[in-house]
Structures are given as structure tokens and as C-alpha cells.
């Protein structure tokens, strides 16, 4: 709401409360109360009032006047990979390096950009025959979560690197086609309120019985996520 200050008129009886009320209005206005209606219409563009502040570890981000960008990046070498095992819970589990917790000083819309590489290693296979099926054994799902609510439209999958029907690891690793680069672009249509929120990619092991060992370990590498918060 624009500032409202009522002038005194000649002849008014000016009491202490009248002065105090106006001073309080001016204080509020100067200390964070300047609103859109107070501005002229052509005086400035947002690039002029954006004074970015950059923060590094442990929560790298850029904070600006009208938007914040939170980002995570993990180098692609194998020693930086996250490894999930087949006998994990079949619940959605956060993928380290693909999660962001952040604070919004005011209500905002968020936009998420994410990409990563994933593949399965260790499933038993059989000799490759013309009828060997590829990408048939679903190993895990990936899905973006906003405040622990899964976003169905971001679901991605990874498959075992064999047909999973063999009994020996000697023939494993015959299907590099099952290795995936995945990406997710997402605009959260619900406005997030001021406060702390979290966005992350989670993975869920596809139901398996250990004895059949349809797949082994699931690697997630080259993990990148950016959460862009745009204030309203």
C-alpha cells in the first residue's frame, strides 16, 4: 500500500499523537514499506536494483532482489557417483547432490532444471542371443519432489543392463543402451509461501526379490540441479 501522509492545515490543533502517527508512517515507509504503488512508472528497471549476493558451500546460491537461484553440481567422475543397491527400500529415497533446501523471504514461484546420468551394473545375464530383450527389466524410478510431494510429470526410469534372466555375472553388462541421461524441466504452478522449502530428485527401487537378482547396483552420476525462485 502506498504511503499515506495527511498534511496539517492552518488552524489545526496538532497534538503529540498526530505528529507521532505521521512519524511512524514515515518510519515504516523508509524501513521496508515502500511498495510498488509508490514508484514512478519509468524510473528504473530491475537490473538496476538487483544487487546479487553469491554464496558458496554448503548451500551455493545467488540471491537477488526479484529472484534467487540455488544450484548443486557434482563432477562426473565415477568416484563422485551415488550408488544405490537393489536391496534398498522400495520407497522413494533422496539422491544426494540432487536436493536443495532453501528459504524464501517472500512468496515465490519456482522453476527447476535438473539433469543427471544413471545406469545399472551387476545384474546377472545370459549369453547374448538374438532374442535377448533389452530395457525390459525396470530397475528404478526417478521423480522430482517439491516439499515431499512427487511430481508425476517428471518421472524417469532406468533399466537393468541385462535381461536379468541369467544365473551368472559372467555375462552381465551387455546392454549399454540402458544407460540414460535424464533431464527434467519443471515449473511449479503452486506459489510457495515465505519460509523454508525443499526440492529434490528421489529414486525408488523397482520391486525385486533378492534371490532372482534382476539387477545389481544403480549409479547416479553427473548430477546437476538448479532451483530458480522468482518472487511475485
Amino acid at each position: 500500500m502506498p504511503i499515506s501522509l495527511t498534511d496539517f492545515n492552518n488552524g489545526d490543533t496538532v497534538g503529540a499523537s498526530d505528529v507521532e502517527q505521521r512519524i511512524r508512517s514515515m518510519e515504516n515507509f523508509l524501513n521496508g514499506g515502500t511498495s510498488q504503488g509508490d514508484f514512478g512508472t519509468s524510473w528504473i528497471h530491475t537490473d538496476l536494483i538487483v544487487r546479487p549476493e553469491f554464496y558458496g558451500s554448503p548451500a551455493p546460491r545467488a540471491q537477488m532482489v526479484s529472484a534467487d537461484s540455488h544450484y548443486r553440481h557434482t563432477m562426473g567422475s565415477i568416484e563422485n557417483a551415488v550408488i544405490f543397491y537393489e536391496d534398498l527400500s522400495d520407497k522413494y529415497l533422496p539422491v544426494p547432490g540432487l536436493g536443495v533446501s532453501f528459504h524464501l523471504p517472500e512468496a515465490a514461484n519456482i522453476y527447476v532444471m535438473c539433469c543427471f546420468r544413471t545406469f545399472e551394473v551387476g545384474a546377472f545375464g545370459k549369453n547374448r542371443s538374438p532374442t535377448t530383450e533389452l530395457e525390459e527389466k525396470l530397475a528404478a524410478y526417478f521423480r522430482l519432489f517439491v516439499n515431499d510431494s512427487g511430481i508425476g510429470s517428471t518421472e524417469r526410469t532406468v533399466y537393468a543392463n541385462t535381461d536379468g534372466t541369467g544365473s551368472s555375472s559372467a555375462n552381465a553388462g551387455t546392454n549399454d543402451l540402458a544407460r540414460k541421461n535424464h533431464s527434467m524441466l519443471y515449473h511449479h504452478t503452486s506459489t510457495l509461501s515465505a519460509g523454508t522449502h525443499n526440492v529434490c530428485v528421489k529414486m525408488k527401487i523397482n520391486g525385486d526379490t533378492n534371490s532372482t537378482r534382476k539387477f545389481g547396483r544403480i549409479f547416479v552420476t553427473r548430477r546437476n540441479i538448479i532451483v530458480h525462485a522468482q518472487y511475485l
Partner: protein
Amino acid sequence: MPKITLTEVKKGDPLKVDKLNSSMDSIRTAAAAIDADNVRIEGVDRRNFKATSTAVNDVASFVNVSSGVTNLNVQQDFVYNSSAMHGHTTEQFKHHTLANGIIGPFSWDASDVAIKLNLSLAYTVPGMHDAHATEPKCSVRPVSSRPYFVFDIRRRDGSSGSWNTVSGTERKIAFNHVAPNFADRVPHKGSLSIVHLVDLAPPSSGVYFSPFVTIWYQRLSRPITITGYNFFGQRIRR
């Protein structure tokens, strides 16, 4: 660069309303005259502004195309069937509540920098096989055509008319598994994203964007399935 000047009341002076009014006027009129120097020199920043005062409409640097109609976050399958066995067919994305997977209308003026289009999806494409006697154009032989499909984003100016490909948004996916016979073919699955900045010169209005897929040399009635589909646009302003 406006500055606030308070009219001091000195001891012994008569306290007249014009002195108080002068101080209030200085503050009241300052905001409308704030300029870039207040930011650069005076350090005016977020702390001086009320929440939501800096990113609304004409002062926003980044405007989403609003309303539920123009933002699609859906979980559903989009199934296409090629009708041309030896050629190609182009299909527009569909949506369960909209006629098509369209975002817009966009409008922009000279102060806009670009429109950022964002498309992300997962796909499943049927496998190929070498039984070329029945599918000569769909097998993998030295003389055959190799099936593939291309995603792109297209633009339409106005609420009707033709769609034109936005150059640079094409993403080509090939059929990369070939089985010896029809029964053994296996689908190929993956995901892709398209992020594209659209040139905004000259100013315009009533512009729509929509994803398309073009299927080349695919056999009749083989579905390409799209799941996990997000498509949205943002205006980026100066």
C-alpha cells in the same frame, strides 16, 4: 537522485504546520522519483521495499506466462500413430483438457529481451526388426531408410493459422535397437529437454508455442508414447 530532506524545528522557533508538511512532502514524493543513482550510490535495495514490490508486471524481470491454461505439468501418455508408411507424419502434442499442448498467447514490447521456452519429456519408442519382407522401409538394411523421429517447438502468430518450426529446437531420436523379428523387438526409452530463447524483434502479440513430433519412415500404427511432459514459457525483461 531524490533525497529526503527533513525540515528541522529549532528550539525557540514557532512550530508551524508547513514545517511538518514540508518534511512529509519530502518523503511522500521521494519514492516516485527514485532513480538508478539511488541504487548505485545510496544503496537502495530489497530491505527498503515491501514484499512483492519489485517483481510485479511492469517492473518484473522474469514473467511467467500465467494461468493454468498456459502451464502444463501433466502426467499422461501421448500416443501417436504414423499414417504414412513410407513417408513422415507430423503430430501436435495433445492435452487432456486443452485442444492442444499450447502455451500462450505471448505478447511483448521493446523492453522485453527474450522468451524462454522450456520443454521436458520422457518417451518410449517401439523397437525395430529386420523382417524387411513385411516392412521394407522399416528394416535396417543398406538400402533402407532408418526410422527416426524429431521433436520440435513450433510457433503460431494468432489464434489460428499455420505452425512454423522454431529453428534450433529440433531434437532427433533414432530407433537404436533392432531385433531379428517382430516378436523380439524391444522399445527404447529415454528423456529429453529443449530450452530455447526466442528472438522478440519486433514487438508483437498473440503468439503461441506448441511441441510437435515428426515421425519418419515408421510403420503404421506403432505408437510413440510420451510421459512426463512439462512445457512452459517465460518472458525475460530488461
